[in-house]
Structures are given as structure tokens and as C-alpha cells.
């Protein structure tokens, strides 16, 4: 078991390496002088530009620059925003809590809707759950989140006044207000991933439904809810958890668009503003943060799958 965890952690190294190289290269791949890019094109004074070039080691060979940059990141120094003058890490950490809350809320909605609906669609003798599941799946997979989010705001906030348009209290200041205010953004983010999870739950349950041990369980006289919950769902759970884990990673990426629609001051919105303002040090920090978060989520998914799947655990 420890061997598997170690193997999995070692596999992370090339991934983290590539991510770090990509993020480092961003400043050098964008057209223009890297020193001017770091300064946000705020000055044309050659002396200032030369000073920045020297202090950031931009006059050194690329591989040395990379290691200097890596050392800086490891110290927690992500540089300063040329626009605001604030440390990039501070801005990111302030925004991160919103993104994490949004992702966790969306994850919760995804799981509570997808598993029961997908399972019912597979096992129910009535066609209604199957039709509802198909409708939700097709809607979720076909509609872009930037459109469904905008429509939700128009219908539920502007016309029906059921939800606030743009109003967020911090969770610990006013939990109920916060949960109510985040419902529409979380639902918007959850919908596409819920759709693909419903599909996987349904397919996995159908796969298990046809197995001999289910027929045996029924032949033994077990009641139907016991058969479904104890035998079908439990055995169908492993591929479902893999899908949920993959979708958890997508939630972090999808948050970029949802934050923009609902004006949530999360890390995705910070990144988009950085692009518009040509604040590339902040953009570097945002890309690094989001990429590392997704890698972490994927790692947790793999380890969860490992612990739940006896075929791997007892090898």
C-alpha cells in the first residue's frame, strides 16, 4: 500500500516539472521584453527596465533563470503585481477561498443530484426517472455554463427575486446568506459535471444489474432496496467515484467562467483581469495555483480509488 502511494507521488514529479516549466515560460513566450512584461509596460525608462532585468536575473541563461524562479516560488515569493503593487500570493490567497467554496458547493450539488437520479434511472421500472435523467444529461452537456448562468440570473434573480444578483457575505460572517448567495453560481458550475456523472452512474449500475450475483441476491429473497443499496450501488461505486474525482478537477477549471458571470472575486476572475491588464506575474501565479489544485484533486481521487478497489489494494 505504501509502495503504491510512493509510486503515485513519484509520478507527480514530471507533471509538476512540466507545469512549472510552462508557467515559467509564460513571461518569455509572450511577445515583448520580459522585463517590460514584468513591469506591466508601465514605463519606458531604460534604466528602470535594466534594473528589473538585473534583479530578476533576466540577463542570465534561461536555465539559471528557471532555477532562480523555482527557488523564489518555493520561498512563497510570487512577485508583485505591476498594476496594484501588492504581492501576487496575497491577492491569490484572498481570492482562493471564494473559488474553493464555489467548487466544494458545486461538488456537493453534483453528488447529491447525480447519484440518486442516475441510480433510479437504471433500476426503476417506471420510465419517468430515465426520462428526467436523459433530459438533465442532455441539457447539462449541451448548454454552455456562461449562458445557463446568465439565464438563471435573469429568471431567478432579476424577475423572480428568489436569489440575490451579486451579493456575497463571507461564510463565517453569515453562513445562511453566503449559502443562499452562492446557490446559483454553484448550480451553474455543477450542471455539466452532474450530467456526465449521471451518465456514468446509470451505465455503471446497468453493468452491475446484469451480473450473476444480483440474480443470486434476488433468488435468496432479499428485498429490492437491499439489493439496490447493498449490492448494486456498492459495486457500481468504484467507477462512479473515479468519474466524480475527474469532474472535481473540471470544477476548478470551469470556475473561471462562472466567476466571470456572477462577478465572484475568485482566482479565475483574478486571472482573467490579469490578462486584460497585462499583469503577467499575477497570471503566472493564478495558472500555477489552479494547475497545482487540479493535480492535488486528481491525486486524492487516485488514492481514494486505490483504497476502495480491493483488486488493487490486495495485490
Amino acid at each position: 500500500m505504501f509502495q503504491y502511494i510512493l509510486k503515485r507521488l513519484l509520478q507527480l514529479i514530471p507533471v509538476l516539472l512540466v507545469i512549472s516549466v510552462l508557467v515559467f515560460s509564460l513571461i518569455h513566450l509572450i511577445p515583448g521584453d520580459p522585463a517590460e512584461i514584468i513591469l506591466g509596460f508601465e514605463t519606458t525608462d531604460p534604466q528602470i527596465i535594466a534594473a528589473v532585468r538585473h534583479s530578476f536575473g533576466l540577463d542570465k541563461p534561461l536555465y539559471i533563470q528557471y532555477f532562480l524562479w523555482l527557488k523564489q516560488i518555493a520561498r512563497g515569493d510570487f512577485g508583485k503585481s505591476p498594476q496594484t503593487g501588492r504581492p501576487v500570493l496575497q491577492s491569490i490567497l484572498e481570492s482562493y477561498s471564494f473559488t474553493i467554496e464555489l467548487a466544494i458547493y458545486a461538488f456537493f450539488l453534483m453528488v447529491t443530484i447525480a447519484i440518486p437520479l442516475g441510480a433510479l434511472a437504471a433500476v426503476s421500472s417506471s420510465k419517468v426517472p430515465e426520462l428526467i435523467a436523459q433530459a438533465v444529461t442532455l441539457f447539462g452537456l449541451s448548454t454552455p455554463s456562461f449562458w445557463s448562468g446568465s439565464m438563471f440570473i435573469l429568471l431567478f434573480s432579476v424577475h423572480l427575486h428568489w436569489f440575490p444578483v451579486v451579493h456575497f457575505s463571507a461564510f463565517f460572517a453569515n453562513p445562511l446568506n453566503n449559502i443562499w448567495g452562492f446557490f446559483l453560481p454553484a448550480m451553474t458550475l455543477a450542471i455539466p459535471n452532474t450530467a456526465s456523472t449521471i451518465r456514468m452512474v446509470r451505465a455503471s449500475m446497468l453493468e452491475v444489474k446484469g451480473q450473476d450475483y444480483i440474480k443470486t441476491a434476488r433468488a435468496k429473497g432479499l428485498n429490492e432496496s437491499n439489493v439496490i443499496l447493498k449490492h448494486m450501488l456498492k459495486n457500481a461505486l468504484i467507477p462512479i467515484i473515479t468519474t466524480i474525482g475527474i469532474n472535481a478537477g473540471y470544477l476548478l477549471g470551469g470556475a473561471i467562467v462562472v466567476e466571470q458571470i456572477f462577478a465572484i472575486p475568485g482566482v479565475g476572475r483574478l486571472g482573467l483581469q490579469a490578462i486584460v491588464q497585462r499583469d503577467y506575474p499575477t497570471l503566472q501565479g493564478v495558472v500555477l495555483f489552479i494547475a497545482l489544485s487540479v493535480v492535488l484533486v486528481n491525486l486524492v481521487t487516485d488514492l481514494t480509488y486505490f483504497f476502495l478497489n480491493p483488486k488493487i489494494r490486495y495485490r
Partner: protein
Amino acid sequence: MGTLIKNRKGIIGLSIVFIIATTALLAPYVAPYDPTQMHFQDRFSSPSSHYLLGTDFYGRDILSRIIYGYRTSLLISSLAVMIASTLGSTLGIMAGYFGGQLDTLIMRTMDILFAFPVLLLAIVIVVIVGPGLVSTILAIGIVYVPIFSRIARGPTLSVKEDGYVEAAKALGEGSFRIILKHIIPNVSVPIFVQITISLATAILFESSLSFLGLGTQPPNASLGLMVSEGRNYIEISPWGTLFPGLAIALVVLGFNLLGDGLQQILNPKLRIER
């Protein structure tokens, strides 16, 4: 094809895609107005006999812009998926057929690309190259390569061990000929199914990038850009956001149904048995 016709989902999907693609192709003949033509006196018009889906904040006909927007979306998505499927399949077949260190190198690179959040990777590529048509095609194409490589590698690995391939090798047939004659026909069906699925997501992807201002640039008509622009006036006139969004959903639905239909034909377990 006969089996597809009997599959309801597949035939509905195919019909939707066919109608939209034909309309987009014949846009100059089908669109009632020039998509960039402004009718200032008719700004924010509701749907009417003059403007079937209304007009936007510049008085431009929404239906015409949607038809031309379909052109942009389908063009970008098709080119991107074509790049991804060609490059991805080639890499996957090479990895599966030649195996060894080449397989490890290719598939580990694909794993790393897979680990990166897709939208983020696309945004980074677009920022580096600069927003526009070419960078959007490139960005979407690159992020889709890993999935095609994985799909091509699987059947390659199993066909490689088959008797007739061994016989062909023994007869001295070159690798390229073997791949062309034996591997590609076995890989083409799953690749084709993935192409229809990827076209659906590529259209969503392209419209997301355009919505964020990183994809197709004005004054080119783009469905994502239309939704983004329409949002500023959504309370005065929801048509500028509603109809382009529905248009995106319709074409994506078409490809999704077509992909579902093809998958059902290939995997009967996905059909419900009562």
C-alpha cells in the same frame, strides 16, 4: 448506416447537425441580412416578421448573426478536431505499434497534458499566441490530442498481436503498410465516434473562449461573443443572450445525440433492458 437509421437518437442528431451545417455553408444565401449591418432605428427589437429573432444593441439581425456564428463555430471546431484526431491518432498508433520507450514517452506526455485543466491550458496558449481564430484552433486542437492518442492506442495494442499481422510481418511487409492496411481500419470506428463527441465539446470550448474575449474577435460573428455582448443589455432585451445560447445548445445537442447513437450501436449494454 442502416443500423444508425434505426437508432432514434442517432438519426435526430444527424438531422440537426446536417441542417445546421448546410445552413452555415449556405449562409450568404440563407441569412436575411448582412450580419454586420446596423439598423440603429431598430435597436433591441423583439422577434417580429422583419427580424425573426430580434435585433441586438447595434440593431444587427440576431438570426443572421447566429447563422454566420454557426459558420465560425463549425469551422473552428472542425479544424481543431481534425488537427487533434490526426495528430493524436498518429501518436497513439505509433505508441501502440512500436511500444517500448516510444510508447512510454508518448503516453507520459499525454498524461501530463491530461493532468492540466483544459480551459486553463487553452487560455495560456491563446495569451501567448494572441486572441483570434488561429490561436483558438491551435489551443483547442492541442488540448484534444491526448484523448485521441489514448483511443487510438487501445485497438492498436490488441490488433498488433493478431495472427494476420504476425503473418504480414513474417511475409516482410513494412510497418507503414501494416499500419495502413490492418491497424487504421480497426482504429477508425472508435476515433470516428470520438470525433463526433469532441466536436460537441469543441463548440462549447470555442464559445467559452469567445465569451471570455479570448477567442473570435469582433466584428466577426461568434455565438459566445454574442452571449457576452448581449449580457450587458439583458434586462432591456434578453434576445441578444437567449437566442445565441440556444443556438449553441442546439448544435451541441445534435452532435451529442449523434455521438450517443453511434455509441449505442457499438455498445449494446448501454441500452436499457426492462
